[in-house]
């Protein structure tokens, strides 16, 4: 389906200390606690959010402005024109109208599966690791087994057994969720194990708090960035997985998604007839949406793994130092002042 995988291993709970160290180095005041959970705005994050917002809006509002995607006209396979911005399909259906409805369908299944898979992984990852011993061993074994069994072939076999008429949106969503939660559960388990042994968790346990309260109040807030990143990841793989299933004709029978569009394009010989406007846009939307979500994940990764963030801060400081040096060199050339005198001043600038 996809090989996007969560890459950072260090614990979120370490990030506060490491960021405090960084702020000592940079001489700035450490930021407030809640701001640690919000990603810093970078150009890449802005691009990511922009892509997500644009595609989501297109899926939500687009269908209101386009005509009926099923209307058949006697003008098959016309290239993009003023009347049909993205051309028509073999049966003269408006590709843009189909695209709008299909985007809505894909987003819907992505969010449903993302929520289901995240809930499953949170249960198996966090609860198992918190209880420890036998429960942890059992859950962990279960997770790892699910992880090594290849997902898509399993989904294909399950969908193959379910008759087409009873293959609804929820069937597909549940099948996709059941086959995709394991990776996140493993990451969440590792994080929970490291948070579980902190003093404040022990304090909460000793003072007699019930397990669910310890998990929700003491452990969960520390895991929020990881869960957010896993959710984003689950949405991408769900959209990709559903597209793959629909493309081979095993998707939900009554839905229209980007995958079904590609299925009809492939079966309508869009490729051999050279109708690029039919099969390029659906895949491009999936790819761009996936890219947007991954870019957001990049920024969340910086919260989980502060070494990546330090890297960016370091890069920023290096750039500023280089710029200051250039300016000083120019200034000294202009004034005829030997650059030696400018040196102490410059050092102070860089330190700041």
């Amino acid at each position: 389906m996809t090989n996007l995988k969560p890459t950072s291993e260090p614990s979120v709970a370490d990030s506060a200390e490491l960021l405090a160290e960084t702020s000592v180095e940079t001489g700035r005041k450490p930021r407030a606690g809640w701001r640690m959970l919000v990603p810093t705005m970078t150009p890449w994050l802005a691009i990511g959010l922009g892509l997500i917002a644009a595609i989501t809006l297109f899926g939500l509002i687009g269908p209101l402005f386009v005509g009926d995607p099923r209307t058949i006209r006697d003008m098959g396979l016309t290239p993009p024109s003023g009347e049909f911005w993205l051309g028509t399909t073999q049966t003269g259906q408006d590709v843009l109208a189909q695209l709008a409805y299909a985007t809505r369908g894909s987003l819907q299944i992505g969010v449903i599966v993302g929520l289901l898979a995240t809930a499953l992984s949170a249960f198996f990852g966090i609860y198992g690791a918190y209880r420890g011993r036998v429960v942890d061993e059992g859950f962990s074994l279960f997770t790892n087994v699910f992880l090594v069994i290849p997902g898509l072939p399993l989904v294909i076999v399950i969908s193959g057994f379910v008759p087409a008429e009873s293959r609804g949106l929820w069937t597909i969503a549940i099948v996709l969720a059941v086959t995709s939660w394991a990776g996140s559960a493993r990451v969440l388990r590792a994080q929970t194990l490291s948070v579980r042994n902190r003093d404040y968790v022990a304090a909460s346990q000793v003072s007699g708090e019930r397990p669910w309260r310890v998990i929700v109040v003491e452990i969960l807030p520390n895991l929020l960035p990881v869960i957010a990143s896993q959710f984003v990841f689950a949405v991408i793989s769900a959209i990709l997985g559903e597209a793959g299933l629909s493309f081979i004709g095993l998707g939900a029978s009554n839905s229209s998604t980007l995958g079904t569009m590609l299925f009809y394009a492939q079966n309508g010989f869009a490729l051999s007839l050279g109708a690029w406007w039919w099969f390029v846009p659906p895949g491009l939307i999936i790819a761009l949406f996936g890219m947007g979500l991954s870019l957001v994940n990049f920024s969340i990764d910086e919260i989980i793994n502060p070494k990546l963030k330090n890297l960016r801060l370091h890069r920023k400081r290096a750039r500023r130092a280089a710029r200051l040096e250039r300016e000083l060199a120019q200034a000294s050339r202009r004034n005829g002042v030997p650059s030696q005198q400018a040196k102490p001043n410059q050092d102070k600038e860089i330190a700041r």
Partner: protein
Amino acid sequence: MSYFLRKIGFYAVALWAALTLNFAIPRMLPGNPVDILLAKLQQRGGQITPETRKAYALLLGGDDTQPLWRQYFDYLGNLFQGDLGVSVSYYPAPVSEVIGQSLPWTVILVGLATVIAAVLGVALGAFVGWKPGTWLDSLIPATTLLAAVPYFWLALLLTYLLARVLGWFPLQGGYDVVLTPGWNAEFIGSAIQYGFLPALTIVLASIGGWLLGMRNMMVSTLSEDYILTAEAKGLSPRKILRSYASRNAVLPSVAGFAISLGFVVSGSVITEQVFSYPGIGGRLLGAVSNNDYALMQGLFLFITLAVLGANLVVDLLYGLIDPRTRARS
């Protein structure tokens, strides 16, 4: 030693789980696969004896005369004898024969493409992560586009550009149909020409993940004390890169090979469909559309077995290259 035993034990459990899942799926889901299958078999001119019916009922459920546990053990017994039933869509070939014919295609295609993607991705990732902060490094987020592209769409796009518009490669198939398969230069050349596009698809779609993982680990490794020590000792940067940084940074990539392989196999199933490649994936989809449940089950078991086997090998190798994993357990 206990590390190896634990790993082998784990994969034994995973194998058992896969076999059980294969047993449970047709029994849990609606529909009556045995009757559909037998009707198809009859259409093809197959003789339906009570034994045939019993064999399929063991594989797919629907036999009410025996208790479930009895069916389960008979099913396992049949599997260990290598009896996966008769394929309906390739009647009268047994399922194991159909799998045997399509296996080399997929193993060579997916295997080669995965190894190429992993080696290239890890090498590039190490190179980019070694000098963080350069312009090359700031382009890294763009590789997420590659990682988020659906395999089959990339396949469609490449076919359109390279095969249809430019005409460099054939549109689909595994080899030139006028040739008979065999170990001669002409046939192998044709197979390479036909396999290039599918392989390129898999490499392009999976390289981003390797690159990113390696780059991030490289950045983390570079701030370790032993790198500082190596620099302080005055070792050359090349030596630090090769012997200190990349060796340690590559470990998670090796460990992650297991998970990636599952994804690559999944992706290549659909990619094979686009190219009508004569491999396992194409057969699986063909079996699904023909309601050839026996072949479907057999192929799923086989794919799972292959992925589990590859993972076991990687895990055992991992124990050899990273002594810490052995010490910990």
